[in-house]
């Protein structure tokens, strides 16, 4: 029974931390954006503006909930829920630390993960593809041209980049021979020549590049943020949303970023393996790596201008997809050659 209790606590903890990560990321985003643009950013609420997310949340809660008259009432309410639920669900299979007994509190160790599924990689992939529905339905049910166009763009973009995303995943799966994220992380322990960590990013740099690029497109972030290109579409699929239902979309976007970064850390950056720290404190390495990738996301958003929509499609289908197929072929050939 204590094991079950521990797992429930871990699940609750993950849920709570994901909620918090969205708030923290909003603050980080505003602060980093400000520094890049030679401003100070949020400053007045709390020390150095650290309580700004709290003020944002209070503002969002007290805003009026608006709904267009011609909207499909059921789907209009359902869409943000689907988006947020998909964002939370995807993290359930992501491991974030080695097995632990919580400093000897438990008789046998539990893994730091909500659920260790043996097809975890595919579960992440499947749940991400469910997230598309939230956006499509939001666009359609709002009954507004900006929302619909934003939703169409978004889903076309996500479907196009899912292919390259999957191919990049497949080349890692070939190397590890397992679909469980925990097994994949454990396959990356140790180092070559005592210097280079045995991370897949060194074996699969092309797959890592494809994964991160497709990840940016999947999460609809700049420079691929067409669904909400302000100059063209007001705010894209969530134009008609306000108050907490808007906040749900906003939260889903940030949680998706966290999930993509966490999955990338597990797949390519060795998860919780790292020098200096013992395995039981590996989650610190995990957090550091995820934080670096998240910072990279924000950095990229405020550095690169948005592409044009046809450029995005051309890049996805004519560059990224052939590259990922080629990478997969080379990896498969290499694995076969070494196995023989």
């Amino acid at each position, binding site marked *: 029974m204590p094991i079950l209790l521990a797992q429930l606590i871990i699940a609750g903890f993950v849920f709570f931390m994901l909620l918090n990560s969205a708030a923290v990321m909003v603050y980080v985003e505003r602060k980093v954006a400000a520094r890049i643009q030679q401003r100070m950013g949020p400053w007045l609420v709390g020390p150095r503006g650290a309580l700004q997310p709290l003020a944002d949340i209070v503002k969002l809660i007290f805003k009026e909930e608006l709904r267009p008259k011609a909207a499909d009432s059921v789907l209009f309410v359902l869409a943000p829920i689907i988006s947020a639920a998909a964002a939370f669900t995807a993290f359930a299979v992501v491991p974030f630390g080695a097995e632990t007994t919580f400093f000897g509190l438990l008789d046998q160790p539990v893994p730091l993960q909500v659920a260790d599924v043996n097809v975890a990689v595919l579960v992440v992939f499947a749940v991400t593809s469910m997230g598309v*529905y939230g956006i*499509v339905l939001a666009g359609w049910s709002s009954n507004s041209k900006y929302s619909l166009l934003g939703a169409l763009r978004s889903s076309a973009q996500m479907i196009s980049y899912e292919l390259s995303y999957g191919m990049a995943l497949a080349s890692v799966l070939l190397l590890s021979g397992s679909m469980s994220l925990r097994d994949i992380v454990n396959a990356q322990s140790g180092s070559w020549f005592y210097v280079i960590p045995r991370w897949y990013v060194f074996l699969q740099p092309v797959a890592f590049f494809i994964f991160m690029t497709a990840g940016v497109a999947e999460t609809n972030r700049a420079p691929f943020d067409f669904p909400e290109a302000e100059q063209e579409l007001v705010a894209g699929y969530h134009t008609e949303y306000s108050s907490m239902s808007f906040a749900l979309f906003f939260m889903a976007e940030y949680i998706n970023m966290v999930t993509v970064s966490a999955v990338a850390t597990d797949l390519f950056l060795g998860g919780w393996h790292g020098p200096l720290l013992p395995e039981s404190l590996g989650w610190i390495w995990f957090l550091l790596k995820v934080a670096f990738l998240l910072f990279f996301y924000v950095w990229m958003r405020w550095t690169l201008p948005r592409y044009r929509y046809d450029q995005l499609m051309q890049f996805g289908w004519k560059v990224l997809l052939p590259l990922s197929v080629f990478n997969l072929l080379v990896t498969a050939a290499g694995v076969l050659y070494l196995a023989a």
Partner: protein
Amino acid sequence: MPHDLILFYAFAAVAVVSTLLVIAQANPMHSVLLLILSFMALAALYVLLDAPFVAVTQIIVYAGAIMVLFLFVVMLLNTPREDTGDSAATGHDSTSTRAFGALLAALMAIELVWALNTTRRLGGALPGRAGADASWSVSEIGAILFRNYAFAFEATSILILIAMVGAITLAGKHGVDRKSKWPS
């Protein structure tokens, strides 16, 4: 009652009810979503059968990829009410349409009974299944798919490719300015 059985009945009920609602809905958009729900419930049933890979594939392929296309078509046609076929515009006799539908349903039922009977006689559904090990690994499925059923697999993919090329040829605009920078 073991909790597996409770889960089975719960998901089976969701699958059956949502599938019934798919055809009982007037709004095609809601029908598509209920069909997705039905696919999800089926995926949960696969998990209960110790086939997580099939379950996830079901979600990725059907609920994730195919239904998005359905949703797109329904969304872009933008018909708030389903065309029931009674309208004079379609030009079809509704009684003959219904008779044909009933015939198809009867054929489907006969096929289902036949298929269920045959698989029960065979014992296991597919070759290569290890007796005690209920969890079916991905590499095993891959090996069977590409060794025993390689021809069927390749033939299906070529069929889909032909259909795709055909659709693009039929829908392609002829004689438009090819130098236009926006994709047509």
